[in-house]
């Protein structure tokens, strides 16, 4: 067995070492590592070890959506190829090769998406993006390289401050970027020509699971009749069919549970800790800091959801490495893979 | 006194009406034996009448009517009346006679006239769609012409009874038959029948034939000779022709087929055409004139129509002579009522007109006890005040409020033409605001061109497109400013057809839609769709052949363009429009809807003289503020 190999640790170190690596790719990479270290001699033993490892991985992080997309894809690949295995060791070797080539191709995916998405960015347009997404940033960078002139509004994304990260990347690429409060989406929407978001996972019906705030952005975009594009690599397609926000795997009883009313509203917090005040919005945030104890604050942070689900009817198109898809095209791809 | 005034009143009016005079003069040559003509006609008429006339009561009704005034007149000052009349009858048919009569009986005494008026009015209603149009007007004009010239008292209020027998002088007008429709002729025939009954055996058989000829001629000479019948220059002409033709065959029922009612709109009045024949007796010429102009769309737009109506009524009130045994304020309303219903027969009443008239009636009702001259002065003043306060001043206030909403760099889209919007845009330009206007226009009236001309002349940068391109141009727009025909109590905007599409396209792109509307156009009415109440225009306006361009050159379909567009140049026969023969085709119909209803959700703000309000606040304004303002 592979007890000697800690798949979770491997996964975490992978992410830590290469920040450009996305979670599903890292997951697959870890699973490939696992296979390398696997001492399994029988098929069933081998399959079991992979299954256990992927379960471990999924449970190791709070938000497992995109991670499980990678795990599921790889598992599916393994099972599908497990039917007629002539020689076990040779087969294991192929899996490893394929897995490694996947990691290489995964990078190419983003470039392909960027290539497909660039024509959608009109010269002189204004684009609203949400938080930080590597593939969105890449797309915009490519567009800028193609001499498109456009401006970007990016939401600060108060939980992760991904917006600040995005702004840094985009400004470095020479794209005029303004960070806005998450709450200012409605305010800017009339000035915006399109909304572009990344995805943690793309679900069966073409809907989107992404960092919290995407859903409200989609609603606002819909109300304003602005196109809402999602950008996602196809390895983020995941076999989930959430009915609503509360049907996500990340949802649990604690999510947004109501706290005991023992809050001391008089004692002000002088700082909200985690907020790095590098951008105006975040300083604004700290000024309007909730009059709660820090511990209380963190508790409520903890019960706040990290991702939300955007139903497909809010999504205009998805830019993926398989092409520009309508939400129903996603379902098609998933059916192809899993039937 | 009264009659003189009236007759004189007629003269300048009709003269002013350019269309009339040529008709009269042209025709002079054709018919020479007017007097004798009618005697035999009745026979001919009888046959046709039986088929074509709507009902016997009609003809019966007309008989006394026609005879009555004559007797009065003969007894009165006019010796010449009779011959003159007979000439009318032969040559122009009832219509002009009736107008004439309305004047004449009044001379004698108001009441018989009234009776008669009612009778004739009723009858007219039955035949109403047969639209007599301007020819009738032409006829009456020409009759009046000679009269006025002969009567020594030229200017206002003078003029003895149109007198001056000059039966001969009326002959010339006979040719106006050419422009006379069958419907008119039918009336004429009825009239003549009555005449015959009244004056036993008056004419010669031979001349009767002639008369018959004359009657028939127009049919053939009608369409090919537009110069003779001015009717062609008038929108209703085509329809009239067809209808007249239908009725000449004696099948009134076929009228429906030819007007080609559209099932969904069967409840709406068919398009109306200018028609003095519809005028009951006793109408003030100013009102008749206004009515005709409205019917011909020479005056259109809610404000213009309202002002024209009020001005005409003011004239009518000024010229009004109180009949014996009553007072001005008590009788004036009775006097005005036929005027109002006449205006309705010309064109369905605009909401603005309705509100103005209601206001006038209200003022009249409030001041029943005033002495005549005081009342007259008061009503005239009230009318002036209404125009000043509710329209002129209101527009100024709306303009100043609207200016706050126009900024440098704006791209403003507007549709068709609204006088208020035009004023606002010009004022904004005069103020030095740098903005661009996109004028969206549509067939068949191309009202936006007028606005475009005004804006272009002032130097406002303009773009001109047709309604179909709305999706294309809306992208660059950041404000839409529209005018209104009326705002209904459910917040819906009732305006020129096409407004709803424009507002919808703007709404789709979240572009603010600003409606400029004076509060006097607010209506108590509620309406959910454009069907329950609307107005149908002349369907022939949609036919875009070369003869039918209404002065809008581009109405014409340029064959080259169309050919290029459609890829089959063959279909574009030069000159003739695609739809030219639509009446002959059983399954082809044209619907020229004049208004549409814009749901309140498409309208961002209404600028009124009481401020900027959401359009759903119409009932509030109606209930709270307007009574106050009227105090």
């Amino acid at each position, binding site marked *: 067995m592979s007890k000697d190999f800690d798949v979770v640790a491997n996964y975490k170190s992978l992410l830590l070492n290469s920040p450009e690596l996305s979670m599903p790719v890292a997951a697959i990479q870890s699973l490939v590592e696992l296979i390398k270290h696997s001492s399994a001699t029988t098929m069933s033993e081998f399959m079991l070890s992979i299954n256990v490892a992927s379960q471990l991985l999924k449970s190791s992080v709070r938000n497992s959506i995109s991670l499980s997309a990678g795990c599921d894809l790889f598992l599916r690949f393994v099972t599908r190829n497990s039917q007629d295995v002539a020689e076990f060791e040779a087969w294991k070797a192929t899996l490893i090769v394929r897995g490694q080539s996947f990691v290489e191709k995964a990078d190419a995916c983003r470039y392909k998406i960027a290539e497909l998405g660039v024509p959608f960015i009109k010269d002189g347009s204004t684009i609203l993006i949400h938080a930080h997404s590597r593939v969105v940033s890449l797309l915009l960078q490519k567009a800028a390289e193609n001499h498109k002139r456009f401006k970007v509004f990016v939401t600060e994304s108060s939980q992760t401050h991904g917006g600040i990260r995005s702004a840094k990347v985009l400004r470095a690429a020479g794209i005029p970027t303004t960070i806005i409060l998450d709450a200012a989406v409605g305010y800017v929407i009339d000035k915006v020509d399109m909304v572009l978001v990344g995805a943690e996972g793309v679900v069966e019906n073409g809907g989107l699971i992404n960092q919290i705030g995407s859903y409200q952005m989609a609603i606002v975009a819909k109300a304003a009749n602005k196109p809402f594009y999602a950008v996602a690599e196809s390895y983020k397609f995941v076999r989930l069919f959430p009915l609503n926000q509360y049907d996500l795997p990340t949802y649990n009883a604690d999510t947004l549970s109501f706290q005991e009313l023992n809050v001391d509203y008089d004692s002000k917090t002088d700082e909200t800790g985690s907020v790095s005040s590098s951008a105006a919005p975040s300083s604004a945030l700290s000024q309007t800091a909730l009059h709660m104890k820090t511990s209380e604050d963190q508790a409520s942070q903890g019960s706040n959801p990290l991702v939300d689900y955007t139903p497909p009817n809010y999504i205009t198109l998805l830019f993926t490495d398989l092409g520009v898809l309508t939400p129903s095209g996603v379902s098609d791809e998933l059916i192809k893979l899993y039937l | 006194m009264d009659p003189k005034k009236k007759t004189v009143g007629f003269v300048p009016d009709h003269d002013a009406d350019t269309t009339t005079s040529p008709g009269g003069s042209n025709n002079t040559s054709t018919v020479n034996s007017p007097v004798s003509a009618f005697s035999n006609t009745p026979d001919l008429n009888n046959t046709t009448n039986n088929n074509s006339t709507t009902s016997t009561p009609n003809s019966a009704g007309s008989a006394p009517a026609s005879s009555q005034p004559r007797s009065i007149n003969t007894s009165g000052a006019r010796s010449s009346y009779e011959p003159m009349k007979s000439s009318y009858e032969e040559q122009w048919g009832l219509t002009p006679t009736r107008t004439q009569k309305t004047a004449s009986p009044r001379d004698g005494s108001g009441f018989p006239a009234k009776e008669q008026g009612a009778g004739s009015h009723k009858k007219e209603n039955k035949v109403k769609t047969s639209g007599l149009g301007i020819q009738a007007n032409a006829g009456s004009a020409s009759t009046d012409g000679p009269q006025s010239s002969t009567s020594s008292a030229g200017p206002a209020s003078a003029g003895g009874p149109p007198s001056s027998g000059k039966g001969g002088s009326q002959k010339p007008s006979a040719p106006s038959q050419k422009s006379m429709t069958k419907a008119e002729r039918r009336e004429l025939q009825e009239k003549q029948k009555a005449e015959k009954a009244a004056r036993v055996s008056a004419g010669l058989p031979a001349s009767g034939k002639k008369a018959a000829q004359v009657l028939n001629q127009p049919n053939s000479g009608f369409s090919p000779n537009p110069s003779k019948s001015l009717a062609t220059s008038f929108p209703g002409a085509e329809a009239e022709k067809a209808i007249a033709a239908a009725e000449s065959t004696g099948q009134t029922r076929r009228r429906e087929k030819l007007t080609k009612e559209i099932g969904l709109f069967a409840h709406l009045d068919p398009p109306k055409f200018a028609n003095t024949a519809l005028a009951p007796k006793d109408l003030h010429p100013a009102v008749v004139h206004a009515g005709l102009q409205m019917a011909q769309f020479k005056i259109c737009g809610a404000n213009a129509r309202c002002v024209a109506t009020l001005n005409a009524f003011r004239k009518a009130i000024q010229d009004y002579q109180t009949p014996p045994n009553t007072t001005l304020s008590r009788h004036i309303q009775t006097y005005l009522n036929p005027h109002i219903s006449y205006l309705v027969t010309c064109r369905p009443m605009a909401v603005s007109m309705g509100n103005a008239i209601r206001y006038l009636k209200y003022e009249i009702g409030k001041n029943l006890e005033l002495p005549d001259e005081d009342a007259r002065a008061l009503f005239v003043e009230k009318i002036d005040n209404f125009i000043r306060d509710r329209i002129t001043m209101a527009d100024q206030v709306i303009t100043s409020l609207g200016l706050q909403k126009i900024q440098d760099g704006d791209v403003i889209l507007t549709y068709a033409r609204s006088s208020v919007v035009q004023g606002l845009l010009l004022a904004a330009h005069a103020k030095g605001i740098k903005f661009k206007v996109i004028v969206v226009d549509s067939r068949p009236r191309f009202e936006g061109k007028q606005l475009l001309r005004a804006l272009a002349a002032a130097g406002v940068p303009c773009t001109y497109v047709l309604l*179909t391109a709305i999706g*294309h141009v809306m992208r660059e727009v950041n404000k839409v400013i529209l005018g209104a025909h009326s705002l209904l109590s459910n917040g819906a905007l009732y305006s020129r057809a096409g407004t709803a599409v424009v507002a919808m396209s703007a709404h789709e792109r979240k572009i603010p839609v600003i409606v400029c509307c004076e509060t006097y156009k607010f209506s108590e009415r509620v309406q959910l769709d454009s069907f329950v109440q609307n107005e149908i225009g002349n369907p022939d306006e949609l036919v875009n052949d070369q003869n039918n361009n209404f002065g809008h050159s581009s109405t014409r379909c340029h064959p080259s363009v169309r050919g290029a567009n459609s890829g089959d140049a063959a279909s574009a026969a030069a000159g003739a429009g695609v739809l030219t023969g639509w009446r002959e085709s059983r399954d082809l119909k044209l619907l020229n809807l004049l208004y549409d209803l814009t749901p309140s959700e498409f309208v961002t703000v209404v600028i009124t003289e009481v401020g900027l309000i959401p359009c759903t606040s119409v009932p509030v304004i109606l209930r709270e503020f307007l009574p106050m303002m009227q105090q």
Partner: protein
Amino acid sequence: MSKGTNDLVDILVAKLKRRQLVGSSAVAQATLKLLIVVISKNNWSKANDLLNLVRSVGQRLIEANPTELAIGNIVRRVLHVIREEFRDAEASSKSDDHSEFQTVPLTTSSSMYNLLSETGSDDKEYTHASHNLRSDIIQEVRDIRIELDTIYENIKNQATNHIHSNEIIMTIGRSRTVEEFLKMASSKRKFHVLVAETAPSYLGQQMALELSKAGIEATVIPDSAVFAVMSRVNKVILGTHAVLANGGLVAISGTHMMAAAAKHHSIPVVVCTGLYKLSPLYPHDEDSFNVVMNPDAVLGFEEGDLMEKVTVTNPYYDYVSPEFVNLFITNQGGHPPSYLYRLIVENYDPNDHTFDPLA
């Protein structure tokens, strides 16, 4: 390319440039005819040779009139057929080598699954040229031609499935497809058609005239009355110039407002179109497929003094976004807009969306 075919290409290019040949249907037919000649009369042995040949011809035709999307569609269809034929030939010659992943029934040329499967099967150059490959390809291309010829037949045969008695139907412009569709329906059902006259081309008037000649009760309405009468309409049936990959339409000016009015009233919008009008391109810019016509039709040149002061625009097409369309009726049946991507996948190869020569 042989001299003869080159001349033929030149002729067609000239016709397209001069707008002597317009209309999706005519253009599609002509393009296909030319391609058959190009394939049969030229020498090629490798797949890429043929593909590049067809691409270069396609490129020239498209440049001649970029708004006639049907040209590109037909060229892509042919390219797709060529690829398929080569692939089949390849497969039959060395079937033992065939990767098992590609036998998965639903697999198309691209799938997320490819990320993990063997590399490069798509980029592989087909060199195998069996002796009857040429005739196979030509046969396949001829099949496309038969499809083009029977488009109206196939579409109109569906008419009675969509139109019931006493319906009120609205349309705009003049589309032969819609015309045939309605005429077919009128043989079985009685219904009423409202036609917006479609100023300034007035094609709607012609449409109404044609329909009335066929005994269909047709009423011409001015474009301004579209919203007003929409509430009584049961269906809006539209023709289109092209259908884009997202389900958007490039259709005659005025279509957008009609479709939007229909959407406001929740009236279903049905688009009748041959499959050859379906383009794998996306409307990156709504104006990219539009044509601006002579402004004289909007504001006559007679009014020159006014003309010189104002801008007059006469766009010929409208872009209608996909959310306004409820159903597409093609020669293959009825499809919701969400299914179009699938038709595109089935008919075109993703590598052919642009015609840059292959390596």
